[in-house]
């Protein structure tokens, strides 16, 4: 399927051909959207702000697994642990070195990137399923280390940390200011990810995903490309973790159970493999559903008093799996593909194709 563009749009230069937003209308819409997202901060209540901040953090983390699995094709079942490493690097930097969030956040990204690279290094020889095993093992090992290295991580008690220090007179203890910070970071990371995807390294990632042997013979060093994928993906995971931990002001090993690693992978499929938009959709959908499950708790506790906690937990487990399975069966290419079809049919209207 060729890519459909808005009618009457012709490229005169290659600059135009590779632009993300090609027409004025597209530029207008994206500007309006971003402005609206910024503006909305001042009308939302703390609850909604909190939810949005969580969504922003998970969008960034989801971009990470999109890079590792969606673009570079390296299946990982340990992504939540990489996010957790980010949280803990930030927490340790704050707790032990006394540095601020502003230093800790990039360090969290770098730390998670390095750990992710370390556990991704078997990808030089492992593929697909075997790599999935290795990353699964990585998840358990990371969780074990974090929950038992008490002098550093405080063991199962977790660590308290603080919000970013005020910058330019903006106090991030105020919810909507933190929202603005998270939104800005999130947009910046989306921008980075999108550029990564459309430039040299992004193409190398997809080459490795689609045909790694051919990629090697066609001049791409697949081992370093895979390592970079893990490194960059881990970096995104770490930044996402730092955003989340900063908001919560607390971290704990329970924040990244194996379940989350699986949901990262599952919702990635729901959002759409190998697309930035898909990753964003995936994170939004996941966290909104999470919130829905929590909101249902009072309802459940009325119907089934005593069992409400378990019902909530099991409700999300069952619902997510069903959503993922339904998508895999009916639309394996995810929300992103659906959205492209909708756009194409709008542009081609009144013709069917």
């Amino acid at each position: 399927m060729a890519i459909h563009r808005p009618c009457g749009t012709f490229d005169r230069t290659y600059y135009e051909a590779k632009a993300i937003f090609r027409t004025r209308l597209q530029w207008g819409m994206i500007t309006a959207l971003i402005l609206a997202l910024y503006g909305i901060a001042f009308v939302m209540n703390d609850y909604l702000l909190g939810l949005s901040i969580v969504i922003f953090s998970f969008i960034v983390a989801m971009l990470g697994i999109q890079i590792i699995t969606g673009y570079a094709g390296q299946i990982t079942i340990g992504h939540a642990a990489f996010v957790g490493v980010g949280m803990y690097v930030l927490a340790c930097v704050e707790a032990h070195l006394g540095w601020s969030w502003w230093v800790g956040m990039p360090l969290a990204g770098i730390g998670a990137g390095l750990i992710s690279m370390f556990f991704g290094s078997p990808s030089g020889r492992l593929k697909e399923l075997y790599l999935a095993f290795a990353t699964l093992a990585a998840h358990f090992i990371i969780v074990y280390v974090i929950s038992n290295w008490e002098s550093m991580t405080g063991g199962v008690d977790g660590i308290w940390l603080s919000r970013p220090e005020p910058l330019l007179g903006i106090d991030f203890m105020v919810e909507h200011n933190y929202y603005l910070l998270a939104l800005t970071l999130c947009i910046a990371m989306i921008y980075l990810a999108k550029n990564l995807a459309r430039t040299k390294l992004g193409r190398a990632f997809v080459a490795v995903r689609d045909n790694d042997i051919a990629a090697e013979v066609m001049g791409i060093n697949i081992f370093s490309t895979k390592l970079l994928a893990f490194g960059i993906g881990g970096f995104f995971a770490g930044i996402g973790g730092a955003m989340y931990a900063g908001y919560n002001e607390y971290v704990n090993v329970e924040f990244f159970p194996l379940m989350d690693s699986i949901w990262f992978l599952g919702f990635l499929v729901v959002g759409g493999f190998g697309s930035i938009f898909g990753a964003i959709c995936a994170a939004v959908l996941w966290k909104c559903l999470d919130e829905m499950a929590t909101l249902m708790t009072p309802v459940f506790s009325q119907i089934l008093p005593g069992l409400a906690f378990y019902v909530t937990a099991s409700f999300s487990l069952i619902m997510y799996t069903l959503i993922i399975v339904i998508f895999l069966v009916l639309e394996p290419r995810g929300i992103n593909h659906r959205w492209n079809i909708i756009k194409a049919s709008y542009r081609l209207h009144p013709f069917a194709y």
Partner: protein
Amino acid sequence: MEQIIKLIVLGLCMGGIYALVAVGYVVVYKSTKVFNFAQAAMITVGAYALYQALIVWSLPIWAAVLFTLAVGVALGLLVERLLMRPLIGQPILAPIVVTLGLMLLLRGVILMIFGGQVYGYGEHFLPLGAWHVGFVTLPMIQVYAFIISMVAIFALIQFYNRTRMGLAMRVTHEDHVVAQNLGINVKRVFQYSWVIACVLGVISGMLLGNIQGCCVELDVTGLMAIAAILFGGLESIGGAIVGGLTLGVLQMLTIGYLAPLMPGEPIMMVPFAFMLLILIFKPYGLFGLVRIERL
């Protein structure tokens, strides 16, 4: 010395169950080329089904076991028909995601029905008590579990080697298309494999539930058994058995010697560390077949 022998014997007993779980993974992988992460959850299902029949309904043992096996068969049929068949031919990620999801789905269903408490069978299932052989104390449930696991695996091997269906399954292991062309009903083979795997899963679930108690975290034990498969590669039943036994022994030795030196519960981590090491040094398992790539 006594200590070592004790640990090895206990490890072998535990390893028997690992072997059973591992064989469950292998059976499905061999015929469908899908790695069934949800095998881990079949264990939990088996454990809870037996609890339901034996304790809640107070059925006699034979009826309770039959009920559990029936649950396994039904689960296998359902999973194959509803989840896996629509995914035939999709890229490798799809079955991985679905089986992982299924693992969580089953966990969710169990949480919904039973809540999060830990249950035990008390003395209603395998006899408690212990035998004393020389200086080694053998808990009876462990020994019985080992024997039952080995019998189940032996039955499976006999099934492969002695029956028509077993033959068809062995053909399918080699090549789906060839099998189809030979007139073998490949879908039926898939169905059988899932059913067998689920039955093996619930059997190991009953045994593990007896030893460790019924809790939703039993599936992590199932995931540990993946380390066992990496001994012989994903396609070798013999490898899975040896791997399971080795894993059990290794785990017991770690508990005996390493655990005091390490913080927390390394017993959980050991199989995974072991798994990672095997993967790093022998990407296709210690004795696995190397996959040939061509251009």
